[in-house]
């Protein structure tokens, strides 16, 4: 496939597009992992969605 005299513009357009799409996918995946990690950390410390189940986080040295 020959892209002719304007190949640089065509390659740049595809490069930018797939670069932006790759960045979007990476951001979404990283954000999902971050939120899951924070939720797991909160649940491990006893903070759950039912306020009755909340156990205050033990303060270091007193637990």
């Amino acid at each position: 496939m020959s892209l002719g005299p304007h190949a640089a513009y065509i390659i740049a357009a595809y490069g930018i597009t797939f670069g932006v799409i790759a960045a979007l996918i990476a951001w979404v995946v990283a954000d999902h992992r971050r939120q899951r990690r924070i939720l797991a950390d909160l649940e491990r410390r006893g903070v759950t969605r039912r306020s009755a189940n909340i156990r205050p986080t033990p303060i270091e040295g007193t637990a």
Partner: protein
Amino acid sequence: MALIDFANPTRFLKLVDRVLPWLAGATALAFAVALVQVYGAPDDYQQGATVKIMFLHVPAAWLAMFCWALMSIAAIGTLVFRHPLADVAAKTAAPLGAAFTFICLATGSLWGRPMWGAYWVWDARLTSVLVLFIMYLGLLALWRSVDDPSRAGRAAAILTLVGAINLPIIKFSVDWWNTLHQGSSVVRLDGPAIHPSILMPLLTMAVAFTLLFITLHLATMRNEVLRRRVRSLRLLQAQAAPGA
């Protein structure tokens, strides 16, 4: 299960977890087919190989506008029906819309240089799409500047509905004003004005872009529901802390 049941964020999360792998697979497949078709598409008799930029530029432009239209529907859901997922849908569509608008502007600029002799001209179509991009950035800034998601959601919904007036301006700018940008060649009353050998890859790429948008939107909505859950838990934790 009725559609209204998915208004429940927990049910919504379960649904997204189930459908997301299938959607991601369908998106990858659609892009693979589209790229093969783009590779085999002939050059345009006037524009040569630069017509290959159209296969990215046009779907990105469609999605840039579709995304704002979706946000406007979600804005009505926020303001009128107070649907629990409406402002989640609007908030998470904004960065995706901004990204597709950026792709539209960047690829259009790279297409314009060899065809028009300029990366940018201040004509009605280009300027109205640039305004759309700035409005997306404004919405993102608004969401970040208000801490309470429900207050931010209402303010953003009003701004979104006001900004929707730009959509017909973008669509009809090439008819209302004398612009350098070409007129509509796919969605026309007398049918598409593009040869099928170029139209088919364009439509397949549009399907691939749309599937990508749906996949990313559902994924970002899931992230936002989790983020709000984290926020609620932190508030509960702060209330339960000794001395609170």
